[in-house]
């Protein structure tokens, strides 16, 4: 049985706004295409990957940042944005792997809750591949992937007309002090961590990318088409 294909788009280190802009273009493209049965050769969507070039705090659908907090965070030199994803406030910045799968769930035969579970599984699997056992996903309000009481990967997804956006943010070598200025995901008293902190060595986003893609293909049962391949 032929696996569905997803276009792999690696942005490298770019401003968060660029990722959002590209995400919007993919959303419009996928929402414009009719029907649930894609003709063979058409992708089920795109896997957008980047490392944010600068610090940015984001709030979700349920909010998460008051105007006062927003002003304070901007004064620290960070961007502040509101997004349409689920979840509350979180931080994105250098050293973090941001993965936004913009997928037509119908073409993949996936329900939204399975997509969320699959994203969690990608982060858990990636931790395993990096030698970290014990990573586990937790249910709302603790959505995300945890090592003990420390969150290593945030998950915030949106789904409109079967098309997903946003995704996960995995701390590789993120400067975790940025998280001290917010209550991450609205969870008072919980910790954050990164692969570098857990493995006690510098783990870059670049290092983590190949095993992450392996995990993604394995879990979503799809092939990834590089963007320089013919369409």
């Amino acid at each position, binding site marked *: 049985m032929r696996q569905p294909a997803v276009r792999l788009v690696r942005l490298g280190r770019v401003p968060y706004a660029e990722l959002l802009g590209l995400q919007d273009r993919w959303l419009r493209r996928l929402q414009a295409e009719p029907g649930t049965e894609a003709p063979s050769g058409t992708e089920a969507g795109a896997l957008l990957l980047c490392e944010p070039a600068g610090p940015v705090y984001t709030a979700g659908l349920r909010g998460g940042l008051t105007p006062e907090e927003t002003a304070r965070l901007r004064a620290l030199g960070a961007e502040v944005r509101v997004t349409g994803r*689920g979840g509350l406030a979180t931080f994105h910045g250098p050293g973090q792997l941001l993965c936004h799968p913009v997928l037509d769930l119908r073409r993949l035969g996936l329900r939204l809750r399975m997509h969320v579970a699959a994203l969690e599984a990608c982060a858990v699997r990636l931790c395993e591949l990096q030698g970290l056992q014990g990573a586990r996903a937790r*249910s709302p309000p603790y959505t995300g992937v945890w090592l003990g009481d420390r969150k290593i990967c945030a998950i915030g997804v949106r789904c409109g007309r079967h098309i997903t956006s946003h995704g996960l943010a995995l701390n590789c070598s993120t400067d975790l002090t940025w998280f001290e200025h917010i209550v991450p995901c609205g969870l008072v008293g919980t910790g954050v961590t990164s692969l570098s902190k857990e493995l006690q060595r510098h783990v870059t986003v670049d290092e983590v990318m190949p095993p992450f893609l392996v995990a993604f293909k394995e879990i979503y049962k799809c092939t990834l088409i590089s963007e320089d391949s013919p369409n």
Partner: protein
Amino acid sequence: IALGVRSVQALLCTLRAVPSPATRALPAEALAAGGGAVRTLRTRPALLSVSKFTEKREWITTESDTGTVGISNFAQEALPEVGTKLNKQDEFGALERVKAAREVTEINEVLAENPGLVNKSCYEDGWLIKMTLSIPFRTKDLMSEEAYEKYIKSIEE
């Protein structure tokens, strides 16, 4: 009805489902299977989670990343006799379409000697296969299921 293991294996794909007898359980995850139809896993607050596939005659018990599959009481009554010919292309069709399945790791060999186990003990000793799941099912506590449902609803338009 006596069964050989081979015909039982081949039947996994052709089984249609009915809800298995009630365990008061909480929905946990969903498996996508064949043509996008979704079946909800129901979990007991215990180490082993027994799930029902709505409208399917199979059940799956999950423990971490391993799933054990069997058939319901209703289904075992409807199995054909040994030697019934089935289409080769149907074999394991359902399992391949189950998105979360990674690999079949074990087949219940006891059934080769004692195929009647499927009839006598379809939920326990008469299990059919075990498989690893590429999307591990996480432990969920009792209180979180409602929160999870709410969360999924909140992010969907």
